[in-house]
C-alpha cells in the first residue's frame, strides 16, 4: 500500500468538497475491492475519503411501490431486511449470495454499483428492476448508468446517495459462483415489472452487465423456462478466460435464466 491521507467525511457535501479539492482523491465505501487494490499497490490515491459510516447514506426504506436503499447499506443488511424480503425477495436472495459473511458485513450497495465489476451481483438487479441511481447531483436511470466493464455514468466528484428499486410483480436471481473468487461466473436476474419482463445478465458479458433482449421477448410471450429453449446469448459477447470459455459462460447464462424463472413459476 502506498501512503495516502485518510479523511472521514462528516457529510456527503463534505465528501464532495474533499473530492473537488483533491483530484487524486478516492472514495472509500466498504472497501471490499478498493482495499485489496490498495494493498496490491494497484492504486495510488493522494487522499482516501471514507464515506462508509455516513448515516445519510445508510438504511432501507419502503415507500409505496419502491424500495429505497442507502448507498452505504451493507449487503448483510439487505440480505436480512424483513422489508426487502417482503417487497423484493429476489434482492435479498441476491445479497445473501455475495461473497462470504465477512464481505457482506463490509461491502455496500453503492460501492458495488459504482465499481461496476463485470462479475458483481448487484448491477444485474439494478438493471433488471429498472432502478434509479440517485447521486448528490442528479438521478440516473439504470439503463444509462452502466457503460461497460468498471465504467459508469458517474462524473468526477459524483457520489451515489441511494438506489431506488421499483417493486416488480415477480423476480428471481440465479447465480453460478466462480469457483475461486465466488463472484458470478453467470448471474441472471429475471424480473416481471410494470415495464415488462427484463432479464439482466452479469458475470458473463465481456462488456459487463447487459439485458438479454431475446430472452425478454420470449418470456413476454410466455413466462416459462421452456420459452428459452433454443435461445442463447451470443458467445462472442461473453468472457473467455483461464477458468471457462465463452461457450461455457453463454451456456450457463441459459441455465441460470431458466433456474431463475423456475424459482418464480415453481
Amino acid at each position, binding site marked *: *500500500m*502506498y*501512503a495516502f491521507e485518510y479523511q472521514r467525511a462528516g457529510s456527503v457535501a463534505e465528501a464532495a468538497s474533499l473530492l473537488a479539492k483533491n483530484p487524486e482523491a478516492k472514495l472509500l465505501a466498504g472497501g471490499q475491492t478498493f482495499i485489496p487494490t490498495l*494493498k*496490491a*499497490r494497484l492504486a495510488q490515491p493522494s487522499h482516501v475519503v471514507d464515506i462508509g459510516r455516513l448515516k445519510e447514506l445508510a438504511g432501507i426504506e419502503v415507500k409505496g411501490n419502491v424500495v429505497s436503499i442507502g448507498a452505504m447499506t451493507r449487503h448483510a443488511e439487505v440480505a436480512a431486511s424483513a422489508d426487502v424480503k417482503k417487497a423484493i425477495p429476489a434482492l435479498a436472495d441476491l445479497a445473501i449470495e455475495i461473497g462470504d459473511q465477512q464481505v457482506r458485513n463490509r461491502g455496500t450497495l453503492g460501492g458495488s454499483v459504482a465499481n461496476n465489476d463485470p462479475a458483481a451481483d448487484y448491477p444485474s438487479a439494478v438493471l433488471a428492476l429498472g432502478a434509479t441511481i440517485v447521486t448528490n447531483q442528479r438521478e440516473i436511470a439504470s439503463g444509462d448508468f452502466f457503460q461497460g466493464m468498471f465504467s459508469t455514468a458517474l462524473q468526477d466528484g459524483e457520489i451515489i446517495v441511494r438506489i431506488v428499486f421499483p417493486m416488480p410483480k415477480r423476480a428471481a436471481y440465479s447465480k*453460478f459462483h466462480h*469457483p*475461486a*473468487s465466488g463472484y458470478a461466473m453467470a448471474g441472471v436476474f429475471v424480473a416481471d415489472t410494470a415495464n415488462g419482463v427484463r432479464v439482466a445478465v452479469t458475470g458473463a458479458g465481456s462488456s459487463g452487465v447487459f439485458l438479454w433482449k431475446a430472452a425478454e421477448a420470449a418470456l413476454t410471450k410466455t413466462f416459462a423456462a421452456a420459452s428459452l429453449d433454443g435461445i442463447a446469448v451470443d458467445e462472442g459477447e461473453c468472457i473467455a478466460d*483461464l*477458468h*471457462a*470459455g465463452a*461457450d*461455457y459462460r453463454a*451456456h*450457463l447464462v441459459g*441455465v441460470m435464466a431458466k433456474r431463475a424463472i423456475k424459482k418464480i413459476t415453481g
Partner: protein
Amino acid sequence: MQPSRREDLRLIAGHGRYSSDWNLPNQLHASVLRSTHAAARIARIDTAPALAAPGVKAVLTHLDVERAGYKSIVGGVATKDKNGELMKKPFYPILATDRVCHVGQAVAFVVAETPEQAQDAVDLIEVEYEESPAIVTFADARAPGAPAVHADIPGNLSFVHEHGDEAKTAAAFAGAKFVTKVRVDSQRLICNPMEPRACLASFDAATGRYLLHAASQGLIAPRVHLQQITGVPATDIDLIVEDVGGSFGIRSSPYPEYMLSMLASKTLGVPVKWTGSRTDTFLSDYHGRALSLTGEVALDDKGNILAFRWEDEIDLGAYAGPFGAFIGTQNVSIMCGGVYRVPSVFVRSCLAYTNTTPVSSYRGAGRPDIAYAIERLIDQAAQEHGFDNLELRRRNFITPAEMPHTTAAGQTYDCGDFPAVLEHALKTVDWSGFPARRTQSEKRGKLRGIGLASYIEAAAAGAQPKDQTAARVAADGTITIYCMAGGSGQGHETTFVSVFAGVLDVAPDAIQYRASDPAFAMIGNGTGGSRTAAGQGSSFTLLAQALLAKARPHAAKALGVAEVSYAKGVFSGGGKSITLKDLARQVAPADAGTHPFDSEAEGSYGATYPNGCHIAEIEIDPDTGVTDLLRYVAVDDLGNILQPMIVEGQVHGGVAQGWGQMFGEHAVYDRESGQFLTASFMDYPMPRAGWLPNSGHFDRVPHPVPTKKNLLGAKGVGESGCSGSLPALMNAMMHAVRPAGVKELQMPVTPAVLWRALRDARAKAA
C-alpha cells in the same frame, strides 16, 4: 462436544506466536524485488535510486551475497543414474545473478526503517531485462529445440532415475494376456499454508551467533541447510520457532529471505525482519506436485498382475528445490506396486527444468501421485478387460498371511490387512446399494458414480538417524518435555504430552511441552512423512520410562524402604507413599542446577505402511458440470490411534486437499510468456468447508492393524487423506461419466472442464 486440543484455546484466542509476531528493538524491515520475467538476462541493475530513498539502509544484490561467500541453495539428490552420472544441478542463487529463470525469483533485497519505505524503494530499483523464450511445462522443456532454462543442461534434462528390473518387467509384458495403459497428470499446486512466510534475524557480534525466527518443521534440517549455504555453523544459529500456521512440506528448508536477513543483520548491526504477503506465497513458496505418471499393467488371463511399468515426467521448476528431485526419484518409485502382489516392476522417471517456481514436497510428496496412478490403472484395467473392479483387487491383494512381504520395488511391508479394509469400506458405504441410488439420480437428470481406492504409502522413515527427547524437571516439580520436531497444526502438545503423561500415569496438565528448544543440541527428525507419532511418540514413551527409573531409587530413599511400587503418579512402599511431583520437589537442587530426574531418551524406528480404502460417491449436474460429493468413506489402517480427534482431523484435511486438487486447484503459467496466471485467491480456488459432505455423509473409520516397528504401534497419519482421495474421487468421476461416453479426464475436473467433456462426448456419439 469433543474435548479440544491443549493448544486450541491459546491459538484461537490469538495468543499463538507465529513468525511475524516476533519483534526486536531497533529492527529494520526488508522487502524483496522479484523478477517480472520468466526467462531473461539481467543486463543492468541500478540500486542507487533505491539507496537514496528515505529510510533505506541497504540494498542487497547477488554481489553482496557472493561477497559474503554464500553458496547455492541446497537441493537435489546424490544418487547416480545407470551410467554413474549425478543429477545435473544448476547453481541456485539466493538472489538472481546475471539472469532470472522464473517469475517471482528474488532479485534484490531492500532494508529500510519501515516496511513501507522498503517497499517504496523496491519500486525504485532499475533492472534492465533482456527477455528470452520461456518454457513452463515438462513437455515443452523436453521438446526438440526447446529453449534451455540453463545453458549447460542439454534438453533441460536433470536426471533419469530407474528403479526395478527392466528386463524382467519387459518379459512379463511380452507374456501378458492383457495390458492396460493410463496416463495421469498430477498438476502443479500452490501449497498455501494459512501463514505466509516471515522471518526475523539478529546477529550478535559479541558472540558471533545468529538468532532466527522463521517457520520450520523441525530444528535440524533448516540449520544444516543454512550452514551449507552461509558457512555459519549450525550450532551458531538459534532457530526459535513456536507456532507455525501450516507447512505441508514446504516449510522444511530455508528460503532466500532467511539468509538475506541474516546477512543484512550482520552487515547493519541490527535485527532485520521480513514479512511476506499472500502474493509472496503464490510466487515464491515452493510449489507442489507438477508430475505426470504413465503406468502400464500386465495381467494374465485370470487377472493376476504380472508387472507394472511406469514412465514418469517430473517438472522440477527452475532449480533443484529442497525435495523436488527426491519426490521424482525415490517417492514415486518405492511404492509403485501398491497393495498388490506384483512380481516385477520397472520405473523410469525423467526430471526436467522449466521456467517456473521450484517444486518441493507437498502433503505426501509423490506418494499420493503414485497411489492415484496405481488405482486409476487397476480400475481402467478392470474396465477394459471385463474384470470386476473389486474382484481384480481381491485377487491381487497381498494377504495378511503373506506378511511380512518384500515388494518388487524393494519395500518390506510388515503388516496390514488390505482385503479386510476393503470389505469394511464396502460395507460402510453400502456399495451393493449403489445401482438403486444411481437410478434415483438418473430420474433427476443427474449422473452418479462411485469409486474406490485401496492405497498404501511409506511413512515414518526420517532423514535423521534417531529421534531424541528430553525432560527437564523444575524445582516446583513440574516437568517440561522437548523434541526437535516442529508442529504446524498437528497437535503435538496434545499428543506428545498425553503419551508421556500416560506412561507416568499422571494428568496431562501436569506436563508442559516445548517444541524445538535449541538449548538442547539434540538429534531428531522434523515433522514430515506422517512420522512424529511413530518416531517422537515412541521416544517420549522411553523418556517417561527413563524418568521413572531415575526417580525410583529416590522414592525408596524418601520412603525408607528397599523397593517401591508406582501407580497413578504415586510411589508406595512400607505403608507410606509420595507423589512423583512431591518427590521431585524434595530432591530438587537448591541452586537450580541439574535436577536428578532430568532425563533423555532416543529411539530409531523404520518405515511404516499406512493404508486404507477410500470410497467416494458423487453426483454430477450435467447442465453446469458441477460435481457434488454426496458421500465419502475413509477406512484407514493407520495403526494404533493415539488421539482420535487429531487423527480424524488429519484425514479430513487430507481429503479436503485431495478434493481441492481433483476439482479446482491448479497453478497455471502462460505457455507463451511464462507469466504466472493464478497468483491470488481470485484465480486459485481453495476447497471450502461447505463443498465437502456434512457429518453423517463423511465417515472416517479406523481399521487398525498395529505395527511392531515402533513402541506405539502407530503407522502415522497426515498424508493418507490425499493418497486415498485422489484416486477414489477420480474413479468415482470416471464411473459417473463413462456411460455418457467420456473416456479420459485429468485433474482438475472443474465444472467448465466437465461440462465440455460431456458436451464433446455427446457430439461424438451423435
